[in-house]
């Protein structure tokens, strides 16, 4: 908070006509938890205001308040100089405020036209006036320069195109203020470029945008104003030309943060995991997601796999862990072929995967923190038919300490933890099986910088003890954190291999990505 470049924190009633929507002293509590502690901030006409902040800083809560999903406990919203109350999303829509959530809210079984007019169909004398809806949809698509047929089913569109449909829907209600929550998290580099072009077009049309993203570099390229939140308080506010990446990170975290460095001072052992000509077919389309991949990871080594969405990172890891079948190739664990083993047998052999999507693949939401932690190692505390409660409690306690989960105790509901702590539970669960090779698919996805650093520290510690660690990431900065070796994947193949002293630019160039600048 000490390092504010400009103190132009807004307060009072905004008299500037350029300010479309302003929040004043907005606070929100959930029970005893204060998610927002009195935030002021302005949205300017035809400009992009980006919200930066770690998970749990209050970004989503603030956006939900602006878009009528939740009501503030105290404070007020001022729309073009007049105080307003926004109680529902429909009221927000009528005021010209739309939000595009991180999870798309389209009906995949319906076509583009029906999705855009969902809930506000144009009625004609004979029911819905489909022709008029289609005409307007075509006009919108033309405006967005997207060649999407209004009669295509949404499920047949690429994720990036679905995002465009979502934007078109927001535009079709004549939104003056458009809030985008992590719109690029599922987009490819070229799709991001399209999105940014759309955003720039919207700006020239006078639409004001609020943008939230974990991709700091990316967000910096389009923002006009930056707002940084930390623990429910706005810590900094500045126009684009006065700030840089370092400023944002400093204000987000409160101190200079280092994701660590590759562990040193230990001997690399024998090859722990060897992939030879691994080929995995793509699930959605023809062709191979992983195409003849060769990779050797030695005991004590940390390898990072970098690549864009669809480069084949997830498929590689899921195949090695046993969820997907390879059509060709060998997977050797300490020299032993494991392709024929089940997931459970691979875990027993010491090969584990921490999946990418912790909600979908990592956690059992109906179980407690403790039972989630012990789930993969039940065999270790079962004698005959019955489980040994004391042995289980021991394993759980050790895991909680080892991966430093902040929780009320093993009996707490898994949903009561923050994203970062949930991720640590998933990692702790797999570490409890005492693996010799651990694969982590985007272990840092959706967790804050502090938790990221801790996750990398845990991995580095285990590598020092001789564990082979393979993690994938889509953030270049994380490649350079603790990896001894960086593998860049592109279209199912290894495009390049680097050691720790490589530059970010070289990695990105190898992946087929270019810095959007």
């Amino acid at each position, binding site marked *: 908070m000490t390092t504010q470049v400009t103190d132009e924190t807004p307060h009072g009633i905004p008299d500037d006509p350029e300010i479309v929507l302003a929040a004043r002293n907005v606070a929100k509590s959930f*029970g*005893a938890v204060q998610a927002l502690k009195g935030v002021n901030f302005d949205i300017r006409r035809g400009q992009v205001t980006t919200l930066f902040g770690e998970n749990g800083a209050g970004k989503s809560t603030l956006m939900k308040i602006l878009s009528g999903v939740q009501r503030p406990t105290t404070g007020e919203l001022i729309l073009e100089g007049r105080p307003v109350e926004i109680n529902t999303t429909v009221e927000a829509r009528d005021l010209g405020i739309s939000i595009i959530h991180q999870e798309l809210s389209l009906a995949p079984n319906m076509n583009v036209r029906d999705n855009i007019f969902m809930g506000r169909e144009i009625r004609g004398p004979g029911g819905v006036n489909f022709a008029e809806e289609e005409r307007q949809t075509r006009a919108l698509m033309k405006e967005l320069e997207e060649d999407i047929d209004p009669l295509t089913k949404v499920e047949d569109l690429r994720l990036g195109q679905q995002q465009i449909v979502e934007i078109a829907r927001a535009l079709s209600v004549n939104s003056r203020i458009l809030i985008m929550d992590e719109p690029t998290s599922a987009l490819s580099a070229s799709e991001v470029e399209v999105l940014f072009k759309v955003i720039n077009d919207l700006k020239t049309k006078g639409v004001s945008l609020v943008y939230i993203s974990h991709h700091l570099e990316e967000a910096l390229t389009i923002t006009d104003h930056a707002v940084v939140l930390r623990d429910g308080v706005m810590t900094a506010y500045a126009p684009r030309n006065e700030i840089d990446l370092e400023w944002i990170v400093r204000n987000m975290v409160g101190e200079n943060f280092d994701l660590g460095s590759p562990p040193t001072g230990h001997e690399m052992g024998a090859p722990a995991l060897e992939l030879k000509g691994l080929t995995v077919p793509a699930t959605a389309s023809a062709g191979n997601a992983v195409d003849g991949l060769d990779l050797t990871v030695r005991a004590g080594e940390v390898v990072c796999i970098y690549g864009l969405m669809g480069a084949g990172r997830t498929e590689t890891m899921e195949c090695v*862990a046993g*969820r997907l079948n390879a059509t060709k190739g060998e997977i050797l664990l300490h020299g032993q072929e494991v392709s024929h083993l*089940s*997931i*459970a047998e691979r*875990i*027993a052999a010491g090969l584990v*995967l921490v*999946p990418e999507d912790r909600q*979908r*693949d*990592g*956690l*059992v*939401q*109906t*179980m*407690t923190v403790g*039972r989630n932690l012990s*789930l*993969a190692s*039940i*065999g270790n505390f*079962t004698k005959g*038919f*019955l*489980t040994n*409660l004391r042995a289980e409690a021991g394993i759980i306690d050790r895991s909680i300490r080892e991966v430093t989960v902040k929780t*009320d*105790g093993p*009996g*707490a*509901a*898994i*949903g*009561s933890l923050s994203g970062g702590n949930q991720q640590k539970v998933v990692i702790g*669960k*797999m570490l409890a*099986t005492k693996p010799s090779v651990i694969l982590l698919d985007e272990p840092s996805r959706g967790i804050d910088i502090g938790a990221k650093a801790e996750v990398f520290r845990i991995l580095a510690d285990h590598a020092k003890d001789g564990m082979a660690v393979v993690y994938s990431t889509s953030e270049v900065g994380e490649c350079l954190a603790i990896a001894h070796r960086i593998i860049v994947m592109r279209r199912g193949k290894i495009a390049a291999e680097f050691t720790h002293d490589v530059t970010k630019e070289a990695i990105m160039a190898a992946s087929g990505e270019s810095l959007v600048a």
Partner: protein
Amino acid sequence: MSNTSAVTGARKSGGKGSFSLIQLLLEGRAFFALIAIIVIFSFLSPNYFKLSNFLTMSNHVAIYGLLAIGMLLVILTGGIDLSVGSVLGLCGVFAGFLMQGIEIPAAGVILYPPVWAVVVLTMALGAFVGFVNGALVAWFKVPAFVATLGSLYVARGVALLMTNGLTFNNLAGDPALGNTGFDWLGFNRLFGVPIGVIVLAVVALLTGLTLMRSSFGRWLYAAGGNPRAAELSGVPVKRVQISVYVLSGICAAIAGIVLSSQLTSAGPTAGTTYELTAIAAVVVGGASLMGGRGTVNGTLLGAFVIGFLADGLVIIGISSYWQTVFTGAVIVLAVMLNSIQYGGQGKRS
């Protein structure tokens, strides 16, 4: 059987220590409902609050209770087993068929298997139907609702075919043939407690222990809560799915044996719509139809709530049409309360 502790323990620590009366009522709702039913009917009829009546009613509950425990296991994995009523009927008929003796034309003899063999073979038949259900669901990806709906029809049809629509009446056996004792299950008592109730207690105890303390129990909750995460954690999800249908089939077979023993007859239409009563008991007992949440104690309470309510209405002489209405209302109320309980939990996370 204190396996509620897993769920309630988690909720208490998540609940910020505020423990209100409403919360207590909500968590123990099946228990309080049972108390209320007993109090109200004891007030309405002098015959209700008597030990002999409770034992008789419990003997009725045993049938539903056995089906409900099997159903609980299936529901915990996020599935459903609609075939249990038909399997009950089929197994009753099969037991009756075995008691009549098996004629082997080639050897020209009639085999009269002893009662223990009848019981084992009948349970094996229940397990077989369950295995078919489980295989359809786990391996062939048939939705549980459809797979078990099919078995519901097939099992009932086979039962009707076996008897040509008639009922086996003579199940008492013959001392000369060495197959007496089948009616022991239905009529005898141990320490004054009907055998059916004891069977239910034993099955409940074993199931409770399995759910609470065995790795299989843990797998079951995990597979129901999030099958993808469970699989990646090394849980053999498909094996668990098949096992629960097999166990549900065995429970239905036991219920079929107890029922035909109680009636000393085995009719092919026995157990019609019992699957719905069993589902109702599980739901009233607080289990979530989405899987992953539910306990044996809850399910037992649910079965007793439904059984004691139905019998109470009979005792005070209310028409069976009204019983249907009351049962329906209780089920809807229970599901509504489940939504409130679990819905609140979802929001907190």
